[in-house]
């Protein structure tokens, strides 16, 4: 077990290295000159040179990468060009809404998606299955910004049940925070539900066709305990994998949903930075998103050992 965990941890290192290289080059190998963009059209040559030196952009690329990596490893993501604060501060400040939104979205998605996918597989080619297929196909075919726009115009504008946009933290308004969270979380939740239901269905279907399921049924084990003890336990590893993979969609979804609902989280921080070409913040936020994704999938990799005893002995 310990060896397995160690192996997983070591395997994450090259992944993180590639993540760092990619994040650096995305914002450093650009057409045009970011310095001129920042200082504006009316800056003198001296001002341009000064800003270039201030940003460290007068150094050759490999040296810049080395210096940047040194800082990143120490937890320094640079300073925002517009916010007048370190990127890490900006990220920490805006972490709470993103975590709340992502967790509630993923919670809704799991709560709806996994039972739906399981039910569809159990009743393969029946009405429930067809319904689940249609619902999940529709879910993955609606872009999150359209879903958000529709939910807002129906439940926010027409019905007036929920606020159209905005965010209040729990420390500020107590339980009233939920009120602001419902529509954004529902948007993300429905998208996650669609992805999870689809993948759960095929994972469970695959297990249902295995010989041991037929054997268990043949020797007279009741249907529900076949489902619980044999099918779901064996489908657990692929379902957990799907859970991890779906975080990519979730993180991307927070960027869009936060901007639609004007939620002051890391996603809207990133989108605002993108619209005003705030390079350090863009770099910091994508590095942050990729880091979270690697971390979550690392935890999931390790958790396989809990579901699959064969992995523990390795």
């Amino acid at each position, binding site marked *: 077990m310990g060896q397995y965990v160690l192996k997983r941890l070591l395997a994450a290192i*090259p*992944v*993180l*290295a*590639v*993540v760092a*290289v*990619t*994040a650096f080059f*995305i*914002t450093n190998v*650009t*057409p*045009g000159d970011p310095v001129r963009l920042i200082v504006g059209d009316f800056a003198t040559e001296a001002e341009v040179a000064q800003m270039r030196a201030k940003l460290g952009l007068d150094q050759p690329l490999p040296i810049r990468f080395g210096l940047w990596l040194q800082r990143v490893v120490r937890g320094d993501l640079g300073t925002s060009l517009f916010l007048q604060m370190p990127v890490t501060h900006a990220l920490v400040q805006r972490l709470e809404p993103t975590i709340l939104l992502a967790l509630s979205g993923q919670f809704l998605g799991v709560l709806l998606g996994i039972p739906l996918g399981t039910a569809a*597989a159990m009743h*393969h*080619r029946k009405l429930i299955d*067809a319904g689940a*297929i249609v619902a999940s*196909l*529709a879910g*993955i*075919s*609606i*872009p*999150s*910004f*359209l879903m958000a*726009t*529709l939910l807002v*115009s129906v439940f926010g*504008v*027409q019905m007036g049940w929920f606020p159209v946009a905005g965010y209040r933290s729990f420390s500020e308004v107590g339980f009233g925070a939920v009120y602001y969270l419902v529509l954004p979380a529902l948007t993300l939740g429905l998208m996650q539900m669609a992805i999870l239901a689809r993948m759960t*269905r*095929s994972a469970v*279907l*695959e297990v249902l*066709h295995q010989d041991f399921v037929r054997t268990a049924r043949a020797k007279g084990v009741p249907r529900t305990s076949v489902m619980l003890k044999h099918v779901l336990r064996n489908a657990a590893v692929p379902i957990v994998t799907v859970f991890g993979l779906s*975080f*990519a*969609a979730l*993180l*991307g979804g927070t*960027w*869009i949903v936060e*901007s639609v609902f004007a939620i002051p989280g890391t996603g809207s921080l*990133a*989108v605002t930075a*993108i*619209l005003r*070409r705030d*390079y350090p913040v*863009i770099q910091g936020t*994508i590095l942050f*998103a*990729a880091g979270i*994704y*690697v971390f979550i*999938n690392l935890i999931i990799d390790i958790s396989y050992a809990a579901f699959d005893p064969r992995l523990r002995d390795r």
Partner: protein
Amino acid sequence: MTRNTNKIEFLLLSFILLFMLFAPFLADQNPRDIAPQKRLQPPSSQHWMGTDEFGRDVFSRTAHGGRTSLLIGLAVISITILVGTSVGALCGWNRSIDPYIMRIFDGWMAFPEIILAISLAAVWGAGQYVIIFAIAFAYTPRMARVARGAVLNVKSRDFVEAVRALGAKDLYALLRHVLPNSLAPVVVQATYMFAAAILAEAALSFLGVGIQPPAPSWGGMISEARDYIPVAPWLVLFPGGAMFIAVLALNLMGDKLQDWLDPYQEG
């Protein structure tokens, strides 16, 4: 599912393709023509999908926007198929380079696709080619993964061994025998990616880093229409509906192709 559903997505898809090819001829109004005296008109015989806040014809904008989306989607999957399949096939075939390239892809895929595409498009400056490159860049490693898996699978089959026993050269065996037999999953993946690329382009345009107004795009139209939904719901419903149908048809098609091309997998 019944055989009838087979036809539905083909009908839907061919309808959409035809619509996009020929709509610009049907929609004779220029999608950029402004007519302030006709702003926010509901659908009528003259403007089938109504007019927007500048009096522009929504039908024409939806049609032209769809054409752009479709072309971008096509370009994206062409690039991902070409690059992704070549790299993936090489990895599956040549096990000595495989671990290195796969580690690179693992790191590359740690960036959520849409986040990677948005950031690239933002940094490189919006434009049709940048959008195509940004989305293709985000999806290529995933396609390579699929192609690699397929080549690995086919490589171990008996007929490949037979071909090699007959003295086929490495490259010949790969190109002539292994690759053609590995294409099914690539085609399925490409269909889903086509759908995903349309959604990604729409998200980019919605956020303002994709197709720039006044050029029409589905994402951009929905973004502009948000303030007018209570008075002019058609501004969101038509482009949104068109996009939904196009993406749904592609996803349905992907599911169907998967059932078709992979007879071993039940379900």
